[in-house]
């Protein structure tokens, strides 16, 4: 698999605070890559180092085979939605984006056409002549996305692209990101783990500046012989014991972390199978579990193979939640 972003041993500290500590991973070509981590894990710092806003203390980053210390060679090929960057408040948004395209060598007419198209993508075409100061937070976020999509960048870094957007706008942006996957590699950081699981095919999880997990979403969530089971009510101890005694079941444990199903009366369990015996396979164990649950008068609400990304995230980050 070809990699368009290669991060090798990146470390960065601010005074005594080690923001990134020997982080290494690769982003496959034409993937939507999710960067996850609790607040302060180093996601934004990593984005900033990739874009050469911040200088790394150690390590190297290559984007499209080019060392980012010579970032100018990536002009037009790499773009970013910075998390906390502000546009000029008193300049019409059209003028600001046209200026970016003029820098890319477009004529005024071409630049204007490209900008209008980009604004249409994020639903801001009717605000083109407005100043940034008059836009809402969500609109400014969409404007940031529009500037990141300007031109035809091959790698797009989106730092929390849907944060602060209403559900409809967030859905629109997610659809847009999916459409772009054919022609660009997109790296997304998000607080919304469900969104990342829906959107991304690869993820990396950072915690306290260290990489704790990286790989494809399938690999990470398909923890071998594990199922998440959501029931209509919590199991009593005797019922839990009964499920644990089924042949082929190694353990049934309640998921009590913040991301576990918390709807009224329901409960979520992690079922781990022991398929070491030759005559046992997954189906021969799952069926008796479900039968037992039904016999207890409990309705199974969900049975999913593997763990949710959220479960995995919470496990590797020690149960810290990134969600507000």
């Amino acid at each position: 698999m070809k990699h368009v972003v290669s991060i090798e041993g990146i470390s960065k500290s601010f005074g005594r605070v080690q923001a990134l500590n020997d982080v290494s991973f690769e982003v496959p070509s034409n993937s939507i890559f999710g960067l996850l981590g609790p607040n302060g894990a180093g996601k934004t710092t990593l984005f900033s180092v990739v874009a050469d806003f911040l200088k790394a203390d150690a390590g190297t980053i290559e984007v499209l085979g080019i060392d980012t210390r010579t970032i100018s060679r990536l002009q037009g090929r790499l773009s970013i939605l910075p998390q906390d960057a502000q546009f000029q408040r008193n300049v019409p948004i059209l003028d600001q984006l046209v200026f970016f395209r003029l820098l890319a060598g477009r004529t005024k007419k071409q630049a204007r056409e490209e900008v209008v198209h980009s604004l249409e993508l994020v639903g801001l075409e009717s605000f083109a002549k407005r100043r940034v100061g008059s836009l809402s937070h969500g609109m400014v976020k969409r404007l940031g996305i529009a500037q990141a999509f300007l031109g035809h960048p091959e790698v797009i870094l989106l730092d929390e692209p849907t944060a602060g957007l209403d559900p409809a706008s967030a859905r629109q942006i997610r659809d847009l990101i999916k459409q772009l996957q054919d022609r660009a590699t997109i790296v997304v950081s998000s607080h919304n783990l469900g969104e990342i699981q829906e959107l991304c095919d690869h993820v990396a999880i950072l915690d306290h500046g260290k990489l704790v997990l990286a790989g494809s979403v399938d690999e990470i969530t398909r923890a071998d012989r594990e199922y998440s089971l959501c029931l209509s009510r919590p199991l009593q101890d005797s019922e839990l014991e009964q499920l644990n005694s089924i042949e082929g079941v190694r353990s049934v444990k309640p998921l009590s972390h913040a991301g576990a199903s918390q709807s009224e009366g329901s409960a979520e369990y992690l079922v781990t199978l022991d398929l070491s015996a030759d005559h046992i396979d997954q189906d021969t164990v799952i069926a008796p579990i479900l039968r037992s649950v039904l016999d207890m008068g409990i309705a199974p609400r969900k049975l999913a193979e593997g763990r949710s990304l959220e479960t995995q995230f919470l496990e590797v980050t020690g149960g810290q939640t990134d969600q507000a």
Partner: protein
Amino acid sequence: MNLKTLTIRHTRLISLCWSRYAVRSGSGLVYLLIALIFGLTVAHVLITPVEQLIAEQKRATGKMDPPLVREAISEIGQPVIQWVLGQKTLKEIMENAAERQRAMMNDPNNASLAENRRYDGSGFDTWVNFLIEKRPALLSAIFLVLLFGMPFVVSFLAYNQISGDNQSRGLRYLLLRTERSNIYFGRFIGTVIFSTAVMAVIVATITFYLGMKTRIYPAPALAGWAVCGFLALSILMVPYIAVCSLISVSVDSPFLSLVLAKLTIAGVLFMAILGSYAWKPAKYLMYALPWGWQCNLLHPEPAHWLGAVVACLAYAAVFLMLGYYRFERRDL
């Protein structure tokens, strides 16, 4: 430090955008306003006594005699210009004035303005003579005061070249689209363009008013000297904008950048002046900035004038290189 990354097209685009943005963002308007108020106030303070003199003359004789008015201006302006150029101390000037007064009291009939000048111990210095006799003296005096004051004013425009956008992280939208060198030098050039335009407006307004209202100098002489004064002021602004640029890349807060720019520009001068009272060599502190050279931008000798121009550009180059070195390496 790699200046090969500079591209003319990007630098031009950024400088033009920045000079327009200077107006839109408000800092340019603040500078324009303060510079105009300062420039026109200086002109008003210096022109008003002349207007009164003309009015008195008209009342007394029914008409204005331009040579006589020019003579009076030269007489009043001479000690001031000598002091500004550093040729005489205030004490010497006061002593000369007292001596002249004594001479006038002893021999009132022989106290014409031309005679009085001869009591000035050192006689006419070529430079002072050039400024008050060969060129419109009133405009010379205005330019000298502007040369002294404008460095303080220009920091209102130049303090925010980088710091504001760095604090708001707005620079990050540009950093993947052009080189840091283009941003740094483009904004510097944009600031110089805006400052030069404001200088042109101030000098043109003062010269036009002086020409139309007082009519004591011939128009070609006024226009020619106005161009020289405009050039002097425009060149002088370059190193001061460059020092503001260096400060602006070194701190993230625009307010702190403004305060540091003011303290640096004023501090160097005042430390040199006040320090020299206690320890003579302290006066050389003023050469940390172009304070010691800048009056030569109105010098009659081409070599002196050229020396001042080269000094101003050399200061600008040093400050710019230091600022660029910092900008290229820092986290943004």
